[in-house]
């Protein structure tokens, strides 16, 4: 199990939270998703054998939110 933190551009609409949390949590291997709205960050816990941080990042980007930086630990 790994934790990835994605820094996004400033989030302004609270509905973005649901959009991102909903989509990511439906992905295989994703255990936990939390959008830190005010910090404009997405925190995820995922199983690195089924899904990669890069794929999560791509999904977030496709939703319309460019990812500025990624931290995996």
């Amino acid at each position: 199990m790994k934790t990835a933190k994605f820094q996004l551009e400033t989030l302004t609409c609270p509905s973005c939270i649901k959009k991102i949390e909903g989509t990511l949590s439906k992905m295989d291997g994703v255990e936990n998703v939390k959008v830190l709205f005010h910090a404009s960050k997405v925190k995820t816990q995922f199983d690195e054998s089924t899904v990669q941080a890069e794929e999560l990042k791509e999904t977030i980007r496709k939703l319309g939110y460019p990812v500025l930086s990624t931290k995996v630990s």
Partner: protein
Amino acid sequence: MFQWVHQQTNRLTLFSGILLAIAFVSYFLHYHALQQSALITATIIAGVPIALKAYQSLCMKAFSIDLLVTIAVIAALFIGEYVESAVVTFLFLFGAYLEARTLKKTRSSIRELTEMAPQEAIVKRNGKELTVSVEEVEEGDRVIIRSGSKIPVDGSILTGAATLNEAAVTGESVPVKKKQNDNVFSGTMVDNGYIEMTAEKVGEDTTFAKIIELVEEAQESKSKTQQFLDKFANVYTPAVVVISALVFLITRDLHLAIIFLVVACPGALVIGAPVSNVAGIGNGAKKGVLVKGGDVMDRFSKVDTLVFDKTGTLTKGKPEVTDIKTFQGYGVNDVLRLVAIGETLSEHHLGQTIVTEAKKRELPMDSSPEDGEVIKGNGIRAIVEGTPLLVGNKALMKAEHLNIPNNVLEYAIMQEKKGNTAIYAAIHGEVVAVISIADQIREDAIPALHELRQHGIQKIVMLTGDNRHTAELVATTLGLDEFHAEQLPADKVAFINKLQKDGHIVAMAGDGINDAPAIATADIGVAMGEGGTDVSMETADLVLMADKLMQFSHAYSLSKATMRNMKQNMYFAVGIVFVLLLGVLMGGIHLASGMLIHEASVLLVILNAMRLTRYHRQPKTQEPPAVLQPA
């Protein structure tokens, strides 16, 4: 392609604004064709990013405000209301732009904190100095920090000394002196000096990283009001679509239906509560108080009873020399120096306190005791620089058959009544000095408790494991309502339970592990951070990073101000929705003016919350003199 459009949103907003101006001018010049085409182009330019966002959310099965606006604009174009469609799209985008700008300001406190995070570090590896990024510093690295740089990781000083600004961790920008073996924290700044340190905690484990993480999480944790509003918005937005469809079906008036769609947008209602919390929590974080979330703010503002632990909370928790009185014509520093050198033999905390005091006075202590022994529980006997010394309590003096003159004894008893421990020092078999040691009350305890009472605290109680005599002294000095001495951790819990049963809302402040059960029982648990111990930071609802009781008082008035601010926002937002709906029904509000009022209300709510980021307790006209009271 989507991304490109979103990145250009600001430019598109500007374009549509210019086109609107052109349309306005052509209206006066009666260029009808130009006016119409400018309006339609403006609608399309500003409408595309809104429609795209709506489409993207719809793909995720989320109803957003963008969707309401998109439907309204399409309908407006359909019935030929070009002025309205152009103004609505422009205002919506411009409003979003202003919202983002002002939201940024309410979040500024936490951003300023994260910007204090160090970026680079200089480490010494294999005798060479390397500049690396902070992430690359490993535990055990020897790190070099020069004056003007930030400390990159947590650790202790190996060599060197410096004056530090620890505001990033404690919220207090008073310079602090640190030397060998002292702990230093990531994010703090070396104002002056040079130090080499070992890295003990790196990356996400540093106190600074934990503070940021706690604050970020706190800003997300929702108060009950917020949770209710979130649920409400979930139902509300689709309901608005259904109701406006009904309005159209019943009245057959498409215009009225779309006005309804726009004015019913829940903007200010949804954002009102969270912005207040974010601004309030951010303000606290910058001043060295971690408030763990919106619900903590809510509960804390309702607290009416405070329970304090004594040692380390109301007092400093570190015994200090409060007075040294010499007799027979000896100089204070001369006696202290000799005694301190003798006490280097002793491991006893009172002996250590004397050594610390001598070091603080920068007395030269190069020599070591030539011959000495520790008389356990009583004191020491030693020969220092050829002078025979006897230092200890009254029992030791008696055991050695030394005569304590009456004036010395009277003085010592007086000091003991003030809560001190009196230590006698004899030179050449003659009692020449009394050293008083006490755990002092924090300098800011009196003004802080006074302020807390002013802001609505009705009852202040102290629970301590200490003896009754010392407890009574602290309680009287501070003017507490009640105190209970010789309390075990379980007694403290029982006492808090009883207060709660009597209908009080209780905040409990304490430091060590022995207070943890009481802190957990209270409605609000307050921990002294002492530069951040993991346990207290994680279990408490509120952490005072610099151990200042004034921070506690600030947090209390801040929580009240935050709740006030949130209520103002809620009343305002609900009021505006009613006014708008009423206006629509009376026919006095059009699409464009409805949008204007809607956006203005969202901005007002954010601006109101922004006041909290600058919130400061009323500056006192006069600082009370910092009198050190022995406990």
